Structures are given as C-alpha cells and as structure tokens.
C-alpha cells in the first residue's frame, strides 16, 4: 500500500491548522509542519523553549544557536515574535492558551489516550519525557501526527494503549500517512483517506473499530485534499 511521505503528511497537517491559531509543533516529524505553512494562514507557532511566532528555517550558514526550536534545530523569528522564559512558556501550554498541539505518538487509543514517550521496554534505553506531556494535558486540541503502523506493520491506533501513557483521553484528531481520523464520542471517524487506500485496507492496519465519515474526503499522494 502506498502512503504519504513525511513531507506530504506535513503538508496535509499544515493545511488543516486553524487560521490565526496558536500552534505548537512537537519535536521530530511535527516540526516539519512549519515548512508547509502558507504565509497568509496567520498561524502563530510556539515553541516550548520560549518563543512565539517562529519563521522558516534559516539559510545554511546563517544559523543562530541561541534561536532554536524544541527539536534543537535553528529557526528564525518573524516580525511580532517574542521571547520568554520556560515558566511562562509552560504556563501557555498547561494553561490552555495553545489552540492546537501537533504531537508524534507511539500509540493512540480509540478514546484518545496518548502514548508518545516510552515503549516501556527495559532495554537500557534512556527515557525522556520533555514537554510533550505538558502540551498533551494543556493544549485546547491535541492532534497526533504519525505513521499508521510501526516498522513491523503493527497498528499504532489501538483499542487500548500498551505503552506507558503520556495522558489519557486527550487526542482529538490523528493524521497518519494513510488517513485523517477524528476521535469522537461515537468512536474513530475516518474524515479523509489516502486516494490509493480503502476503508477495508485501513481497517486491517488499525486495531480499533473505524467509522467512515458520511462526507469522507480524499487525500492526494502529495498531501493535498481536493486541490487545497
């Protein structure tokens, strides 16, 4: 089954961000959403390490290592940017001031439980939690962005998380390389599906019941929807 590239998935997520919303992009894949934001979207990006209104990546050779994002990658600041300390930054996150946080995940359950910091294995790997948990608890909406399955083709969308939780019942929307799925009181609703996929093939790689939306949209392989 073909699937969205990381780039196409980032474009898909970017196109769904609320106009003029305050958005936090988690470390790793979510941070690439910044590269696909339309200038006229008015979206204002926040990073936990103390900046609001992040611009595009700097040209090579012009990196400023005091101006980085949560992934510790050099960024730029847009006009109207502000710098602040971590306590105010996490007040924004924990206090419900971020409209949408885009987070990566190992697993998401059908009730919106999020597991994104540890696989729980005692293999000597070092654990790290960072600020994802603060966002997961505090942002107004939590969207997850991840590959639909693990490298071993195991489903990441599950009945119940087997990995240690980051937070319970917080995820409202999942963007994968195959579909957009809303977590609703009725269950997991497929809002959009990759053009080369079908609900049946999606069900095979999803370990929780799926409902096809009555107005299900089609995602192009480049991550655009209906020409957006």
């Amino acid at each position, binding site marked *: 089954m073909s699937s969205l590239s990381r780039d196409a998935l980032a474009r898909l997520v970017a196109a769904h961000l609320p106009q003029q919303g305050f958005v936090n992009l988690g470390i790793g894949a979510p941070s690439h959403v910044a590269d696909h934001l339309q200038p006229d979207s008015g979206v204002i990006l926040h990073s936990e390490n103390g900046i609001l209104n992040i611009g595009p990546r700097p040209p090579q050779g012009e990196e400023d290592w005091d101006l980085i994002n949560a992934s510790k990658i050099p960024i730029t600041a847009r006009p109207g940017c502000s710098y602040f300390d971590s306590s*105010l930054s996490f007040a924004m996150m924990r206090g419900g001031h971020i409209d949408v946080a885009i987070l990566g995940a190992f697993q998401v359950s059908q009730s919106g439980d999020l597991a994104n910091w540890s696989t729980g294995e005692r293999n000597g790997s070092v654990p790290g939690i960072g600020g994802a948990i603060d966002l997961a608890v505090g942002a107004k909406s939590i969207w997850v962005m991840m590959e639909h399955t693990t490298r071993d083709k195991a489903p990441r969308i599950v009945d119940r998380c087997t990995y240690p939780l980051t937070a319970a019942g917080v995820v409202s929307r999942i963007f994968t390389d195959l579909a957009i799925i809303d977590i609703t009181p009725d269950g997991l609703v497929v809002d959009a599906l990759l053009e080369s996929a079908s609900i049946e093939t999606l069900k095979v790689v999803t370990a929780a019941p799926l409902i096809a939306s009555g107005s299900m949209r089609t995602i192009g392989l480049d991550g655009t929807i209906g020409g957006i």
Partner: protein
Amino acid sequence: MRNVVVENAREAVAGIKDGDTVMMGGFGGAGLPTGVIEAVLDTGVRELTIISNNAGASGPDLSLWFAAGIVRKIICSYPRNAEAFAQRYRAGEVELELVPQGTLVERIRAGGAGLGGFLSPVGVGTVFAEGKRAIDVDGRGYILELPLRADFSFVKGRQADALGNVTYNKTARNHCAVMATAATTVAVEVDEIVEVGTMDPEAIVTPCIFVDRVYMRKPQ
C-alpha cells in the same frame, strides 16, 4: 494576519454580562485601565465579582462601580482608603474576600498557568488560614490556595502591536501581567499601538497569545 485592535473601551468590554468575574489591573492608579470604568458602567451590567489589588480611591476607578452598585463581591488585598467601597461594605451590600497580596497574585498566576493550586506558607497560624486545607510537607505547614480565573481581565499597558504583544510602563506593570494570562477575554488599554515588528522581542512582557483585545487610551 491576526489583528486584535478594537476602536475603544466600549468594544473592549463587549460581551460582558451580569454575574461575570472581572480582573482589574493596577496598584492604585498605576496600571488601571481607566477607559473600561465608564464603558462597563454603560453596559448596564450588574452583580460583578471583581478581582483587584485595591477597591478604588476617588478617581475614575472602581469607586464608580461601587457607587453604582454593580459589584456583588470583591477579591482584594488592600481595600483601604476606598470610600465608595467602604459604604457598600458597611451596609453589607458587597462581599469582601480579603487575600494577602502575594497570594492574590499567585492565585491568578495559577489560574493562567493551568495549576490546581499551590502550597503557601503565608497566612499559616492566622485568620487567613481559616476555611482552607492545611497541608504539611516535611513537617512544615502550608495552606492550599486555589487558582483564580475570570471572564474578563482589563489591564493597562504602555505599547501594543496588532498581534496583541504588550509592554507596560514602570511600576504600572504590577498585577497586569498575571491578570493578562487568566481570563477568557483579555483586553488591554495602551498608550500607543505600534507596527508589528517594532517592539523588542526581548522586552515584550505579555506575548500576544494571552491578549484578545487592545485599544488606545482616550486622551485625557
């Protein structure tokens, strides 16, 4: 682009309704957004709960709200030298919740920062501990203080841009900065609205994420 500038104080208070909780910035007159005093009165709203360091003095301040009888309760640290408030208070027409100033500020901060409360050493062994949960940590006694939030916060800044970034002026910063984090609608009265990009990003005190409305103070 985001633009939170509104025409005047009347638009800044739009949507306020009976029974709302309102934070008012300021330590005395410094940091008090005077424009909303009249604007709120004009809405005819009543039964307000006010969160403020003081209870007005005799200028265009909270005194007018107490005189007009639109305040049901005030959560306050120092309501002295406030004659209009005192009259309502003596008559039993206004409820007073007296809160140590640092506790007041910290409760507002907790409200804005998504905390469920904090353990304060302030007030232990005094009347300010009455009715509150006592919690010991390592043998030291603390009071559990709970967060404060409001429907509206009205504060006074020096400069703002259209995005809603705000600076303050000298000691007029006081409670304004935390109050600007802890309300559903935050409206800031400023002396000056400047172009986006002209404020020093290192010196912005209230980043725009907290601010919903900005308006210019009327020339006095």
